């Protein structure tokens, strides 16, 4: 499994080690070059000094006025420096006593600036040399004049010095660099994991808290007060997610609890019928079977409505939009209720203006049917029902059902759209499950509309109104 901590550990240690190696190597090379340049500069000085003691004679010979005492290092006691001078033909003109029987390599160039290189000295030690081709001065003006006033013939001079001291210093430097490198690497291997561990403490705490959250503790929230700013957005999103999860779980629990509660009475009825039929088989008749069927149909209706509600509220319902006229739809939906309304002598008035929509006609039929069912059921005998559809001045559709009611209080209006709400809390009505208006609200929301209820006329007239939701940008996904 991938681990941020391990990955950061590995990457940081490798990166720091690489930077350290490059840095230390660069430092070493820089110091080595600086020391070598210093030796070369010293050699150049010696080349120049030796050049001053070389003088050309008019007869073509060269006079070298040099003794071991002239420059320190050329005497036989110390014997750290060497030089050798050749003429153009390669004949040795002069050489330091420190060379003994050995020779220096003749590697020069015709330039003011000497050429430098490392070499193995005649005494077997490592050394550094500077070689240059130069014209010596004339022994005097008369000599120069005798020679025709031109420059003296070129000579080749190589000066070498023992570099063991430099190499020893460079070795020490290399040792220090390697030692420091190892120390830094060791420290990095300790400090980086420690720093990461310290730095990731809030992340660990977050992970631990997250691990403790289960379906039973969705009310828990992550504290955001002392969190580093990098974790704040994550924590806030997690808290938002938890809130949504909690709401979702609570909704599911409520649905389950409501469903269980609503099914208890029909289940009890069914069980009583079945157990009575088993205990007293002689008492069983056709009525028992009809009762059993009616109970199962009621239970089926409860479950069907609850599932429809749950699907609609969770957005799982698929909308099939088509051109619909609300007025026509309402007229057709009313037909099954006409006989019941007539039985109760209800005075039904229709004020239906065409409301053309592109919407899901099945959901609209569901809403309208539920509103009609409630109106016919709860309007007292001889009462009035008014069904209205119109297009408002703002070109929005509107549909409403008003009916006379008895015994409703304004404080109860807020509960009309709740699941299983009934005027009477007793829940064994059978025909009315208390889900009709919940379905209306849920369907209207899915279509971009909203349902509202209003009690007017001294609490005797209930109006349920459907209109496009204001927060839906393009209206009710329809055109009125």
């Amino acid at each position: 499994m991938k681990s941020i901590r391990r990955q950061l550990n590995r990457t940081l240690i490798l990166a720091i080690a690489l930077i350290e190696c490059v840095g230390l190597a660069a430092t070493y090379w820089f110091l080595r070059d600086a020391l070598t340049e210093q030796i070369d500069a010293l050699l150049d000085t010696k080349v120049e000094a030796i050049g001053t003691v070389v003088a050309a004679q008019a007869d073509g010979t060269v006079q070298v006025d040099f003794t071991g005492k002239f420059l320190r290092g050329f005497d036989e006691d110390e014997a750290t420096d060497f030089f050798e001078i050749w003429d153009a033909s390669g004949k040795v003109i002069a050489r330091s006593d420190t060379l003994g029987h050995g020779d220096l390599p003749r590697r020069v160039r015709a330039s003011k600036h000497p050429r430098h290189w490392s070499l193995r000295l005649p005494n077997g030690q490592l050394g550094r040399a500077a070689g240059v081709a130069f014209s010596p001065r004339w022994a005097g003006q008369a000599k120069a004049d005798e020679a025709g006033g031109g420059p003296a013939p070129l000579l080749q001079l190589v000066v070498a010095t023992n570099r063991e001291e430099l190499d020893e210093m460079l070795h020490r430097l290399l040792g220090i660099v390697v030692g420091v490198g190892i120390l830094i690497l060791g420290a990095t291997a300790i400090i980086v994991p420690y720093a990461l561990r310290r730095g990731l403490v809030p992340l660990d705490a977050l992970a631990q808290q997250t691990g403790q959250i289960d379906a039973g503790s969705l009310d828990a929230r992550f504290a955001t007060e002392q969190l580093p700013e990098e974790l704040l957005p994550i924590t806030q999103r997690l808290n938002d997610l938890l809130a949504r999860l909690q709401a979702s779980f609570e909704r599911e629990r409520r649905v389950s609890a409501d469903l269980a509660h609503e099914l208890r009475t029909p289940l009890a009825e069914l069980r009583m019928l079945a157990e009575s039929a088993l205990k007293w088989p002689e008492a069983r008749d056709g009525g028992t079977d009809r009762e059993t069927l009616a109970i199962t149909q009621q239970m089926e209706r409860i479950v069907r409505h609850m599932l429809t509600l749950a699907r609609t509220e969770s957005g799982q319902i698929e909308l099939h939009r088509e051109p619909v006229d609300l007025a026509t739809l309402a007229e057709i939906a009313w037909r099954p209720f006409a006989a019941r309304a007539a039985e109760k002598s209800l005075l039904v008035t229709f004020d239906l203006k065409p409301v053309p929509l592109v919407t899901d006609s099945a959901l609209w039929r569901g809403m309208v049917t539920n509103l009609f069912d409630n109106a016919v059921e709860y309007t007292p005998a001889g009462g009035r029902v008014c069904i209205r559809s119109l297009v408002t001045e703002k070109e929005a559709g509107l549909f409403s059902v008003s009916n006379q009611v008895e015994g409703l209080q304004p404080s109860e209006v807020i509960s009309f759209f709740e699941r299983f709400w009934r005027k009477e809390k007793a829940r064994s009505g059978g025909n009315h499950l208390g889900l009709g208006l919940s379905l209306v609200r849920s369907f209207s929301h899915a279509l971009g509309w909203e349902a509202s209820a209003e009690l007017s006329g001294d609490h005797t007239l209930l109006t349920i109104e459907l209109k496009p939701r204001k927060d839906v940008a393009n209206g009710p996904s329809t055109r009125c």
Partner: protein
Amino acid sequence: MRLLLVEDSPRLQKSVSAALRRTGYSVDVAGDGEEGLWFAQTHDYDAIVLDIMLPKLDGLTVLRRLREKGQSTHVLLLTAKDTVPDRVLGLESGADDYLVKPFALEEMLARVQALCRRAYGKKNDVIAVGPLTVDTRARRALCDGRPLELTTREFSLLEYLARRRGEPVARAEIEAHIYDENADPMSNVVDSAVCILRKKLSALTATALIHTRRGFGYVLDDAVAPDSPR
């Protein structure tokens, strides 16, 4: 035994009351809380089976009002509410027992039976009176070891007298506990039933068990009272 069933579901009313009647109880039925309270306050029941969620007046309110009036009739709450707080609230309101829907018929009958037994301070389902043994649970009576063939109402009468063994029981009490609201018993129905019961008993045993106390009613006892003619 006479029971009151207060339940708003017509189907449960019908099936529960039918089951109780077949078991031998006299049952009055009320469909809402107000009606239930009226029945409970105007009749003397051995036990009340009371739903909680009722129209007009909920079951707990009915129960509290009964207890406030000092009525101690045993009450079995019948409800769809199954949480512990709901049960606690029901019992704290004065209920004697609590049954959650859906319930088993036998369990409901057993609990009603237990409440009726407690109404008469008995812990045993079998009541022995001399040679007579009345098994209130099995709804069976034996006299000198031989089964007594009784109708449901005759058994209820015998059970009621047996539960109040040795006590004079007035005719009005018998009417109130054996016949329900719909039975509308004639004034001599109790005397006729007692007469039939005596005949059936005397066919199996020589011991006189049902005695008449003039001015009071009837006593079921195996000890013959010298001043009480049969």
